Structures are given as structure tokens and as C-alpha cells.
């Protein structure tokens, strides 16, 4: 039927379309009645209404006729060329709503929008009963919308930028339970056997389709708080009932619909902004993000546009609970907790029994958390099951004694912003230089730690230009720089690692060369004092450098460092050695200290000595950094 109606007639600047009778009786020829609906030019013009363009995800310049929808799915469009033609899609939608009344149930937001734009047209449409949609709405019973931020997790590169999704809460949810709220997530639809790195690489180029998916919120809690050990931050939005209504109507339209998914820009956070923009067009959040979209930045914009309502709710991960409980125990009791999680008979020892009931219970709680944490990702053995159950029964026995709750840390949206520029002046090898650095994202080991994880560094897109003797040269261009110093504890022994890909300048044999390099390292780190890290890594490096004998070389190496957090700021001291297979040895000593003036500004000093094949050169610098 759609095809029959595909040709439209323009008569005196008006469009009318013809409604075919439903093909109810196949034995009689289809009768085409000319029950025409007229759309004036003015009526057609609503196809360029911003909300219509938003509802269909058009991007580009409509005046130039150069538009395309982000949606990559035929089921989303009625017109054959709907992906590229807002007006054709508008007319085809009207036609479909008229001729196939059920299609109104698939696109309730388009219908709502039409009702505001062309009430006379919408009133002429056939009535239809959208039982499935109504049932869904009734089931959700949504009163408010919450934007949820899943913070990053050390040791997982693809989680480091964080993640956002939306939750729909029913009336009076505080008195009820957010467990039963519905979460809507936009993500790449990836095969289960793809590893995290492969995902990141392929995702950068839009290699996977993305779509919206729904879970009960408790599934998200399990996924983030428990399986991935990421803290959740819940930002309630102050949308009005009408805005919530429109958002839900639109979310319904996105069931199973495929978008292209790009890791950096058209990602989870971006699509959520669109939903909010549709609910409240005046917020115009999308305009804030012409390029890369980092989830936490979207939270900041939503906050700055006055969309956040009241308090932000913090939901610590299981790991946060575990660390907090263990850290609250005196060392001897912590050892008992670890031992008890491995052997239930520890509870029969004098050492345990001599403690007060309260102390015992705190040990039991920590021990239970630990055993759950350690067996979270695997099927539990009968012994573990039994021990867990015995511990749970001990919790039951003295249930009035509760473990300490983690304090809410610094809100991630209040931390420093993710783009950075710095100006540095210094002296290198007896020459004065000025460096200008731009970093697209995100956070390094010395940046202000408030709102970020200590020992985690993730930087992409850093470029440094150096002015020496009135000439400008490329000093460094870094594609990727990741460090993850996850400290080993008496109950948990994670690895620390680093990776770096970029171009950097090296001084060798009295001349400077640009070296293209990729390097990585793996090792261990410890936390000796609060928020410090001592680490050791074995490293490897591949380098292309025309100053080298064969241009290419490979260098195994070692690196050790100490990262300190003090009231005076953050400092790092590190030593590294790289032995190239063609004989050159590089040794580096570096000290760097950063003072955060505010969340927007910081001052840094650094000193380093590089020894390249027994030739030393030194560098000192002082820099001012601004985050924006």
C-alpha cells in the first residue's frame, strides 16, 4: 500500500494524498477513494520544525537540503528516502498514520508533536488503540527521570571514560525501591566474544551498530556495582510531567532501532543528550558537543543547564564497600577477616573469640563481602557456597551490628574538566624553551584527583609545540597514554600497567630526532600511605627513529616510580632504563610536582635528566595549566 501511495501530487502549491481502502476483501478490486487530506505550504513547513528534526535524528543543513539521519534502520522511516528527506518522511508519516492507524502506536512521540503542530490534521486521523504501548507506560508508571553515571574502573581501558544511562522512576520511588525502576541504555551491540581492546579499536570507527536496550535497574546495579565494581552516581532530572511524557513516547519509538555507534562522539552519552533535548528542546544540550563526547562532560552540561534536581545519590560498588569495611578494621582483624573468608574454622580460634561481638561481626561482614567479591565472576564451589552461607548465618545472628557505610567521595562532575592547555617555560640542554600543550582528554597521574581515581591516567590526543630560538617545532604528539596503578593489597593482587603511543623528540648524538614509538609495561604497585603508589614495571618499546642505526629498534626495559599525594599537591618521581637491541641505552630520571590552584588551574614544575648512550641532558620547566 505504501508503494501505491508513493507518488504525491502537488496541486496549486498544495499536497494531497490519496487514501486507499484497506484491502479487506481480496476478491474485489481495491477501490481508491479520493478522500483527500490537504496540506498547505504552511503545513508542510512544519517538517523543518526543530523537534521534528530531533525526533528523527537529522543532522546537517536543512536549508541546503543536505541532511541525513543518524538512524541506520529502515524500520524507523516510512518514506523510502526518509533517512535523507525530513519533508518526505513527514508526509509519509502522516499518510501512514492515516492509512495504517496502527503505525501511530509505533511512533507516539511523532504523533504528540503533530498534535501540537497540526491539531486539525491529527484530529482527522483514525482512532487507534495502542494497548501494548499503554501497557508499557502503565508498567513504567514514570514520574521522574534520573541520569546515572557509572564511574570509571581501574584496569579496564574501555570503562575509563565512564558511562551514562537513564533510569525511569515511578511515583514516590524513595519510599519504594529503585531496584524496580527501568533503565535505558544506549550501547554498541557487540558479539560476546570480542575483547575489550578489540572493541575499543573497532568502536572508534563505528564498527558496531548501537541501540537502546532496557533492563530493570537492579540488573544495572548488578552489572556495574557488583560485576564491574564501578560506583554509580544518580542525578535526578527536573523534567516536567509533559517532558517526561514526550521522552517516554520517543523512547518507545527506538525499540530495536539501530544507530551507528562511534566510541568518541556518537556514543552512549551523546544519544542520551538527544533524549533530554527532545524532552526539553530549550536545553539544547547537543549544541555543546560538536565533537568528542565524554560521559562525565555530559553530566556537567546537564547540571550547568539547571536540569539536575536536588541531591545527587551515590551508590558505592561492592569493591568500594569491601575496601571500606576492610580499611575500617585494625590490621590484625583484617587478617582475621581474610583468613575467615578462606577457612570458617577461624571463628573457633581464641584470637577471634576474644574479640567483642561487635568486632567479630565487623570481621564477619568484611569476610562475607570479600568472599562474594572474589567469587563474583565464577561459579562458586560447594566449599565456597557453604562458607558463604555460614557467614551469612552469622550476619543474621547479630543483625543489629552493621558494617560501616562508605562516605560519599568527591562528586565526579565537580572534578576538573577534561580538556587541558598548558604553557611551560624552561631550559633544556642549556637552551630556553616555551612549550604549548593541548590535551583533548582526560586526566593524568598528577592532575587534581578530586572526582577521579588515584593512580589512573588516561590521555588521548596530546600535542606539544616547542618554541626554541624563534622557531617552532613539534615536541610531542601523543595518541594514547594510559597508566593504571591498581595497588596490591593483602586480599587482592591486581596488576598495574601502562601503554603509550606517540611521537616524541629525542636528543641523541648532538642532534634531535623525532621518534615514533609504541611502548607498554606491566608490573605491580602498592599503596604504602594513603593515596600514594610505589610501582615497578617491566617495559617494552618499539621505536622508529632515523637517528638509530637501523631506523627501527626494540627496547626491553624497566621502570620504577613513586607517586605521592600530599597537602602540597601531587608529585611523582620515576626512573627508567631502556636497552635497545642495537646497543643504545637510555636512562631517565624524572621528578614532577603539580599544585592544583582550583579545579580549573594548576601549576607544575618538572626536572629530568636523560642519559642517552652516556650523554646526559637535563631539562627543567615550570608550567601553568588550565582545564576547560
Amino acid at each position: 500500500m505504501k508503494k501505491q501511495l508513493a507518488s504525491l501530487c502537488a496541486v496549486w502549491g498544495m499536497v494531497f494524498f490519496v487514501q486507499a481502502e484497506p484491502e479487506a476483501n481480496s476478491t474485489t478490486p481495491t477501490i481508491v477513494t479520493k478522500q483527500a487530506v490537504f496540506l498547505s505550504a504552511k503545513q508542510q513547513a512544519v517538517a523543518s520544525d526543530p523537534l521534528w528534526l530531533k525526533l528523527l535524528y537529522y543532522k546537517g543543513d536543512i536549508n541546503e537540503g543536505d541532511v541525513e539521519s543518524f538512524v541506520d534502520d529502515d524500520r524507523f522511516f516510512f518514506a523510502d528516502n526518509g533517512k535523507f528527506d525530513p519533508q518526505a518522511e513527514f508526509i509519509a508519516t502522516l499518510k501512514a498514520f492515516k492509512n495504517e492507524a496502527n503505525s501511530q502506536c509505533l511512533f507516539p512521540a511523532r504523533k504528540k508533536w503533530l498534535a501540537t503542530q497540526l491539531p486539525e490534521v491529527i484530529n482527522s486521523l483514525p482512532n487507534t488503540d495502542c494497548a501494548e504501548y499503554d501497557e508499557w507506560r502503565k508498567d513504567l508508571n514514570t514520574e521522574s527521570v534520573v541520569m546515572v553515571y557509572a564511574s570509571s574502573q581501574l584496569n579496564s581501558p574501555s570503562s575509563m571514560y565512564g558511562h551514562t544511562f537513564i533510569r525511569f522512576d515511578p511515583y514516590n520511588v524513595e519510599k519504594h525501591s529503585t531496584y524496580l525502576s527501568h533503565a535505558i541504555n544506549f550501547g554498541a551491540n557487540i558479539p560476546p566474544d570480542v575483547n575489550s581492546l578489540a572493541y575499543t579499536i573497532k568502536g572508534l570507527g563505528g564498527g558496531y551498530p548501537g541501540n537502546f536496550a532496557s533492563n530493570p535497574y537492579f540488573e544495572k546495579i548488578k552489572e556495574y556495582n557488583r560485576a564491574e565494581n564501578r560506583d554509580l552516581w544518580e542525578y535526578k532530572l527536573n523534567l516536567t510531567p509533559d517532558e517526561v511524557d514526550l521522552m517516554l513516547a520517543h523512547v518507545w519509538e527506538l525499540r530495536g532501532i539501530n544507530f551507528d555507534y562511534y566510541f568518541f562522539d556518537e556514543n552512549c552519552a551523546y544519544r542520551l543528550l538527544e533524549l533530554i533535548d527532545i524532552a526539553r528542546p530549550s536545553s539544547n544540550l547537543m549544541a555543546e558537543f560538536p565533537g568528542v563526547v565524554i560521559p562525565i562532560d555530559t553530566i556537567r552540561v546537564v547540571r550547568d543547564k539547571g536540569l539536575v534536581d536536588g541531591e545527587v545519590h551515590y551508590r558505592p560498588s561492592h569493591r568500594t564497600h569491601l575496601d571500606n569495611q576492610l580499611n575500617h578494621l585494625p590490621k590484625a582483624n583484617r587478617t582475621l577477616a581474610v583468613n575467615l573468608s578462606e577457612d570458617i574454622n577461624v571463628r573457633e580460634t581464641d584470637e577471634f573469640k576474644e574479640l567483642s561481638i561487635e568486632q567479630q561481626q565487623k570481621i564477619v561482614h568484611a569476610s562475607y563481602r570479600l568472599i562474594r567479591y572474589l567469587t563474583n565472576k565464577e561459579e562458586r564451589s560447594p566449599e565456597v557456597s557453604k562458607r558463604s552461607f555460614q557467614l551469612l548465618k552469622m550476619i543474621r545472628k547479630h543483625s543489629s551490628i552493621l558494617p560501616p557505610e562508605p562516605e560519599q567521595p568527591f562528586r565526579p562532575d565537580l572534578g576538573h574538566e577534561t580538556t587541558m592547555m598548558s604553557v611551560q617555560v624552561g631550559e633544556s640542554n642549556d637552551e630556553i624553551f616555551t612549550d604549548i600543550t593541548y590535551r583533548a582528554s582526560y586526566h593524568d597521574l598528577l592532575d587534581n584527583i578530586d572526582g577521579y581515581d588515584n593512580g589512573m591516567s588516561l590521555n588521548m590526543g596530546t600535542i606539544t609545540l616547542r618554541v626554541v630560538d624563534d622557531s617552532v617545532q613539534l615536541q610531542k604528539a601523543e595518541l594514547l597514554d594510559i597508566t593504571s596503578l591498581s595497588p596490591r593489597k593483602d586480599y587482592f593482587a591486581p596488576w598495574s600497567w601502562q601503554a603509550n603511543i606517540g611521537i616524541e623528540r629525542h636528543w641523541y648524538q648532538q642532534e634531535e630526532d623525532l621518534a615514533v614509538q609504541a611502548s607498554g609495561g606491566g608490573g605491580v604497585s602498592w599503596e604504602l600511605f594513603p593515596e600514594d603508589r610505589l610501582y615497578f614495571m617491566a617495559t617494552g618499546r618499539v621505536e622508529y627513529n632515523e637517528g638509530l642505526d637501523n631506523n627501527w629498534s626494540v627496547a626491553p626495559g624497566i621502570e620504577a616510580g613513586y607517586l605521592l599525594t600530599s597537602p602540597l599537591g601531587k608529585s611523582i618521581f620515576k626512573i627508567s632504563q631502556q636497552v635497545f637491541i642495537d646497543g643504545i641505552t637510555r636512562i631517565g630520571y624524572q621528578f614532577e610536582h603539580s599544585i592544583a590552584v582550583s579545579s580549573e588551574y594548576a601549576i607544575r614544575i618538572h626536572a629530568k635528566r636523560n642519559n642517552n648512550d652516556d650523554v646526559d641532558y637535563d631539562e627543567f620547566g615550570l608550567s601553568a595549566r588550565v582545564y576547560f
Partner: protein
Amino acid sequence: MKKILITAALLTMSSSAFAGAPGGPNCGWGNMLFKGQTGTPSHIMASLTNGSTGNATFGMTFGTNGCSTTGALSYGGKEMVDVSMIMDEFSEDVARGDGEAMTAVAVSMGVEEQDRANFNRTLHTNFDRMFPSEDVTTEHVVATMFTVMEEDEKLAKYTVAQ
């Protein structure tokens, strides 16, 4: 007796739903309390990458872990949250006598606010009956919860389908 039959029917239903939807651990009524989550690692991998672990065709099956279609099952005709999906949290809440998972179960059964404290207390008091061993099944947990609620004057009404 009737309840057991219904449960058996539900078991069949949920396991067939499971068969059609890979990647859904902790599914159905037969799940053992402390057995843990088989299949979780691949699930974790998907979610580490912000992948869509939920159901994308949420028109038909809104809110699903790839198992029950809405995260809810009916028990003796009574709609309620699929407790097997939050068994770890629920068992801990019952042991403590309070918590979000327990509230979720209460809310999903329609237990009014003024009866929640009583609901919590009743379950907590009967922890040993609901969770007699580490091998307990969800089915036993839920059946016993219904029994102890039926024994309570104020809670009995919530066990009946509205």
C-alpha cells in the same frame, strides 16, 4: 499442591524462555542460592564495553535479562519480581532485616508502606526457614516466604493475586 503445580509450570516456562535467549544467567526458579552465576564472564565482557546487555527489542520484552521478559514472574497468579535475579542481594537483606532488594520484593508484591517493617521483620525472623541450607532453591525461598506471610495476619492478604 496447587502451588507446586503452578511452580512446575513456571519452571518450564522460564527455562524455555532461557533457551531462546542466550547469555542470561541466574534465570528461572530452579537457581541455587549460593551457586553463583555461570556464564557471567561473557556477560561482564559485554558490559565492560558498555555493550547493550539489556534487550533491544524492548517492545515485546521490555526489561529483561534475557530470561524472564519483564524481570517479573507470577507466583500462584501473583505478579512479583523474579527473586532469582536478585537472590544474592535478597538473601543478604533478609539476614540483615532490611535492604533495597527486600523492599523491591515487597513493592513488587504490593506490600503497602505501613506493612513493610512488618514484612522485613517477618522474613528476617524466618531466615532459617527460608534459607535452610546453601543448596536452597529460589523456589523454596519464595514458597516459604509465601507461607510465613500467610501465617501473618497483616501480610496474608499480599499473597493472594489481586
